[in-house]
């Protein structure tokens, strides 16, 4: 372990990253623009990497630094690149994203989820040795729940994808505080999994866009026969 003032400074930095991570998770729920959603996700990933670096220096664990490096490369750089390559610019230009609920109500529910995350992780935290307890676990868990919530209320494909990625970010954020010696291969596998997920979803969204002319998957509520007879009762929203 390093000397106390240094450790205290690292703790303060990590706590700051935690607070901003939570704020970014809230902002992903609330933002209206697809581009803003992506930028917030990039910011959240950078905070995750920062927290991993800080914890890596604090516990002198090479694994955590490697996790940070993998995150730094894959999420803020590669994932946006893949999305830009697979999707048209029209998807990013969209400013008004549909939500099932309006934004203030959505934010209040998100708030309840964050408090819930705190109480859910209390027993988990009491099982960890005191010097390894940190805000990462409840805040990461809150990030996980908020990502799942984003996935639920959004009606647009790309923000839904970002919801999934934010869930993964949250899980990572909690994970780096709980296990300092996860085999590196697992981290790499998860990171490449994320990339494949983005690629597959990007292609899927592209196919949806080609078929129905938009990416508002919230409107895909009814099934249609492949060769529709005229007036067969299959409703289709334009």
């Amino acid at each position, binding site marked *: 372990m390093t000397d106390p003032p240094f450790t*205290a400074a690292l703790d*303060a*930095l990590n*706590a*700051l990253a*935690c*607070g*901003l991570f*939570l*704020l970014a998770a*809230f*902002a992903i729920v*609330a933002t209206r623009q697809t581009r803003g959603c992506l930028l917030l996700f990039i910011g959240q990933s950078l905070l995750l990497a920062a927290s991993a670096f800080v914890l890596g220096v604090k516990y002198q664990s090479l694994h955590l630094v490697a996790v940070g490096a993998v995150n730094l490369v894959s999420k803020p750089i590669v994932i946006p690149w893949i999305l830009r390559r697979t999707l048209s610019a029209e998807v990013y230009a969209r400013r008004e994203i549909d939500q099932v609920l309006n*934004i*203030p109500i959505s*934010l209040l529910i*998100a*708030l309840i989820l*964050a*408090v819930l995350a*705190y109480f859910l992780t209390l027993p988990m935290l009491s099982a960890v040795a005191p010097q390894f307890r*940190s*805000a990462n676990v*409840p*805040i990461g868990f809150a990030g996980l729940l908020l990502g799942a919530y984003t996935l639920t209320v959004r009606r647009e494909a790309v923000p839904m994808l970002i919801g999934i990625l934010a869930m993964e970010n949250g899980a990572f954020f909690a994970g780096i505080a709980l296990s300092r010696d996860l085999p590196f291969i697992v981290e790499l596998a998860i990171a490449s999994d994320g990339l494949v997920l983005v690629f597959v979803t990007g292609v899927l969204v592209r196919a949806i866009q080609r078929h129905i002319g938009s990416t508002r998957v919230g409107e895909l509520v009814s099934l249609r026969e492949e060769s529709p007879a005229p007036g067969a009762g299959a409703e289709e929203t334009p």
Partner: protein
Amino acid sequence: MPYRILANLLQVLAVLLLSPLAAGVLNRLKEIVQSKRGPSIFQPYRDLWKLFHKDQVLSERSSWVFRATPYVVFITPIFVTLLIPVLTAHPLFLAFMADMVGAGFVLALGGFFAALGAVDTANPYGPMGASRTRMVGFLAEPVFVIVFFTVSFVAGSTIPYIVQKHWIASPASFLEPSHVLLLAAFFMLILAETGRIPVDSASGHFELAMIEESKSLEYSGSGAALMKWGGYMKLLVLMCVYLNVLVTPWGLATEQRLAQVLVAIPLVAAKVLLFLLALVVVESSLAKLRLFRISEFLGAAFITCVAAMVSRLFTA
């Protein structure tokens, strides 16, 4: 004893005399950013001087509320000045009369009278602006309460002098997430309370889009001057609370010596200048929100603030 009276006087005079300058500097900075020539930084003084020398026109149909409002709007920021650390880090006479929530309510009294005065005349734009201000006001109220609840949760008190001591005593807790998020929420609250750009355009002259300005449309002469001056002071007082208590609690007079109080004036002015620069960046880079989007802006402020409290819970 004479020191305390002098310090109090200096504090009030500083707010009274420097607040138009702050407004002038803000306008000038904005115009520099927008590549305009613009009036000098002393223009607000000239405006006030001109208005005080003009006759006042009062509607026959207006009641005493309309006549009393400029004085209430002018006096309430001065009362708040007595409650908060503007130049001194040690409490003055009235420091323990009310905490930050109390100071907020004193300011809200001025806003309440301004709204009543706007409704009092039959001008159609006055009541419209008043009702919009009330809408912003009741959306800002929960944020306001939660901000100070969080302050007291973190610093153990809502008396501004004690909170300021807390931040000075523990610089390590400065990077605490609860503190940083609190600063963000308070900043958004100041933007909403003083009618700054994402909520309301202070320099707009289109009556239908006005929120804050339309309440003082009916005033002329000295009444208009008092309303304007009250608005300048409100902005400066809110900046002082924000800067001296929460963001940069340093640079105030720590000992009971008059020289230190005098030295504190340029230091506080420098802090205010930095804040004004930040304000100019915000005002020049954002667009005014649609009226019903204001609830989302203040909802975001509310969430930021509750996130501050929750993360305090997490890290403790």
